[in-house]
């Protein structure tokens, strides 16, 4: 089990309300920290506005809930058959038109009241941001998110950086018809503290606005069932200050540094491009060395692999030992369907020597 030292100790109003609601039903309510992937702890305007609206609705719902359950409990206690009952029947009441009208109109009015801000907010959250915004393309694959910055020509995977305090409009789709291996299925991008989820579908482009008020790392995951490793498809948003973001962009735009020939790293680079009769890494992954256009590849772009904290759909911390295990036996870390369905990372049956060289090379990709 992995530890998450960064889990925040933050309890929102809604959490309190929900605990109160649940307490009514005797559900054990425990005070504990809320996780990072917490929809009740918004960290930007696109999560905040729906959150504020739902708090009002939760409040109304709680009142209705207490009222109805109160009526039920009251009826049960008050109108139980008593021990000294004479066996006669109660008064036979068949209905009451005035009451019927009352409990038709009152709920309708309540709903009309919450309907208006709901509709308004639908448009507000879906329309293009009014201020200046940045666009990032998000492409869902089985089972990882790919990100592309059209303004900067940067490809990255699993985690991506945004400037804090600036709206970012995600332009999203699933798969890529050009990639035979990765038949597109539906995914859903969800980083709850920044915004609600938005599905990514083949043959449709969908949009999602996100914005982080403060720098920080925001976590999320794919929220539309997408097959075998659906649970292992996580998303990470690194919100940076304007200066940090600028230097991040600069480092990501750079080409990979070529290792010296003859060193283990250089040997690893050769293996990356040629594994004999086995599939070469480069047939699916890109390490851009400065010539030609950067392009989308089948697997994650590895040009600046080691600039990322996590990998494998962001389920594992990126370090030498894990990287080595991954190359040796991918299925032991993340279930794949390469053999049966051509999806994911194959087991390349690397020798110890090849492993050493490849890992050494990958570690140079900063």
């Amino acid at each position, binding site marked *: *089990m*992995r*530890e998450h030292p960064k889990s925040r100790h933050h309890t929102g109003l809604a959490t309190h309300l*929900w605990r109160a609601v649940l307490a009514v*039903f005797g*559900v054990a309510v*425990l005070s*504990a*920290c*809320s*996780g990072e*992937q917490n*929809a009740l702890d918004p960290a930007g305007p696109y*999560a905040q*506005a*729906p959150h504020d*609206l*739902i708090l009002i*609705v*939760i409040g109304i719902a709680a009142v209705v*809930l207490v009222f*109805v359950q109160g009526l*039920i409990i009251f009826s*049960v206690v008050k*109108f*139980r058959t008593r021990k000294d*009952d004479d066996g006669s*029947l*109660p008064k*036979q*009441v*068949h209905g*009451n038109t005035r009451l*019927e009208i009352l409990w*038709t109109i009152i709920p309708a009015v309540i*709903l009309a009241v919450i*309907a208006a801000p*709901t509709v308004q907010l*639908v448009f507000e959250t879906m329309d293009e941001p009014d201020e200046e915004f940045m666009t990032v393309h998000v492409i869902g694959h089985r089972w990882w998110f790919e990100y592309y910055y059209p303004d900067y020509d940067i490809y990255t995977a699993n985690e991506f950086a945004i400037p804090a305090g600036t709206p970012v409009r995600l332009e999203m789709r699933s798969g890529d*018809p050009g990639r035979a291996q990765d038949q*597109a*299925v*539906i995914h859903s991008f969800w980083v*709850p503290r920044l915004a*609600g*989820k*938005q599905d990514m*579908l083949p*043959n*449709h*482009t969908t949009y999602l606005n996100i914005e982080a008020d403060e720098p920080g790392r925001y976590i999320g995951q794919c*929220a*539309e*069932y997408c*097959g*075998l490793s659906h*649970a292992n498809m*996580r998303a990470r948003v690194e919100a940076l200050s304007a200066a940090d973001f600028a230097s991040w962009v600069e480092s990501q735009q750079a080409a990979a540094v070529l290792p010296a020939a003859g060193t283990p790293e250089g040997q690893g680079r050769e293996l990356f491009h040629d594994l004999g009769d086995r599939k070469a890494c480069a047939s699916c992954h890109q390490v851009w060395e400065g010539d030609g256009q950067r392009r989308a590849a089948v697997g994650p772009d590895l040009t600046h692999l080691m600039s990322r904290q996590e990998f494998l759909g962001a389920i594992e911390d990126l370090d030498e030992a894990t990287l080595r295990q991954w190359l040796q036996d991918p299925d032991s870390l993340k*279930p794949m369907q390469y053999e049966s*369905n051509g999806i994911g990372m194959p087991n390349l049956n690397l020798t110890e020597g090849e492993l050493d060289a490849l890992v050494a090379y990958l570690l140079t990709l900063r």
Partner: protein
Amino acid sequence: MATAEKTRYSGRPSAQTGFTAWLTTTDHKKIGVMYFFTVLAFFFFGGVEAGFVRWQLSQAELSVLSPEMYNQFFTMHGITMVFLVVMPLSAAFFNYLIPLMIGSRDVAFPRLNAYSYWLYLFGGILLYSSFFLGGAPNSSWVAYPPLSTDAIANMSFYVVGLAVLGVSSLAAAVNFIVTILNMRAPGMTFMRMPVFVWMSLVTNFLLLFALPIITVALFMLGADTVLGAQFFEPATGGDPMLYQHLFWLFGHPEVYIMILPAMGIVSEILPVGSRKPLFGYAAVVFAGAAIGFIGFGVWAHHMFTTAMGPVARSAFGLVTMFIAVPTGIKIFNWVFTMWGGKLRFTTPMLFSIGFVSMFTIGGLSGVMHAIVPHNAQQHDTYFVVAHFHYVLFGGALFGLIAGIYYWFPKVTGKMMSESLGKMHFWTWLVGFNLTFGPMHMSGLLGQPRRTAVLPGELGSTVELYNLLSTVGYLILFASALVFLFNLIKSIKSGTPSGNDPWDARTLEWMTDSPTPHVNFYSIPTVTHRDEFWHRKYAEDDAGQAIKVPAGAAEEHDVATHADEHIHMPDPSYWPLVHSLGYIPVGYGMVFANPWLLGVGALWLVIGLYGWINEPVAEGDDDEPVGSETSHAGSVTS
């Protein structure tokens, strides 16, 4: 009546007891009982699947099952509970009760009724056989393409299994609609029908109009998977949204298909348990019909996070909010049925009150889903899982279990144990809330559905809520064992119930318990809503009820109908023989094997000709055209 030809159809079964009698029965009561026990078996399977899901999620990063198996288990859990448990359990009640409640001797098409049951059984077996034939469907019960058209998803079993179950439900829907419209006892006008019959009528109309839509979606899915059609293939321009629209155009009415029968059951039990008539009968009936009607206009609220624009999202959000209005009407009428009554807390009454209470919670979280901008936070998380379990478990299942306790004496002539029943209720209530209550929280704290592991990064709170859910599951499992024990014990040695153990209101209790083969020795003439109650009690203008002294129940009818010819459908092999043909056809479609398909098609045709050639009842073949001499004899010509 032209009954001249009395020649017996050769080889026709006639047994009323024993194994053959069950295989060949056309008696709606026996068919209802068969539905019930088959449901118990599938409920066990679906429950075990849920158990593995809960085990896997009891701790973060736990791996009890491989992801492949986990995905198969949660998919089959959903399919099982929806199509093989809740729907057919409602069908068990339709079968047993509709003819009795409307004062009829059977359904309109008794052999078609048997056929519906056999198709249900074979459809279920076909689905479950997938575990032994290369793996069960693993693409979730909604089966969204393009994921589901991948051969590795094993969805051809889903497509064929659901198509067979669809035929079963469609035949049943036609049957019950015609039965209710055409076979009511004299005087049983629409506004005198028990609410359960009303809700059954609405439900079966929903089935009638929703099933063809899922059938279209399934055929397209199957054509893509097996024949290489391009309906949902992104490469040639296929649109995955189309499937979702079709699926939910069926899927949302399906929700009401599952809940309305339970609402009907509760509307029968609450008045009996409160010793008062149902508050606002007309309002409850019309609210039910309104729910059924609006239920066809809200499907896209399952799709708020897909590629739908803000206009569609807003429109479906609004309609969804307003379906809460008729639902609220029902809840208030149920509460006011109890108001001012003298409540008797028998087990069926407890489950009915539990239904109203739990369903209210599910209804309110449903309104929260309609808040479209925040739906994007709730959608496909455990918050949704909590919501629909409050509606379908806390709602539908509580109502249906209430019905089991309530009508058990009707079927067996014995009472179920009240002490065990109460133990069942309280453990069930606690276990249910412990299982699904915390899911509201874990969902809002970021736990998505359908993940084969509980991610550790969600934090210790989410992990704790999941552990609580798993503990709740164990309580539910133990509670289900109490119920099973009670059921078996009561069938064997329950105390005799007499004919009217609850001081009930509706026609089914007017005849003997257990119900005699002919249902009613003579068909009653109905003059009131709650006819049976009005034969036992008189009510003055002030609403005070006085017991009518004489056991006035049936005697006067016997006099008027003394010469009535009781005319019951005979048993038949043909529904079973014909429906067996669906097995080779089904596997032929799953494995795209033309030989199996051919054999099956021939089998179906032969079965059908045997069926057509055999009269419903002996000597029944040459009925004069246009007469209403139904088997029920409800209308004398």
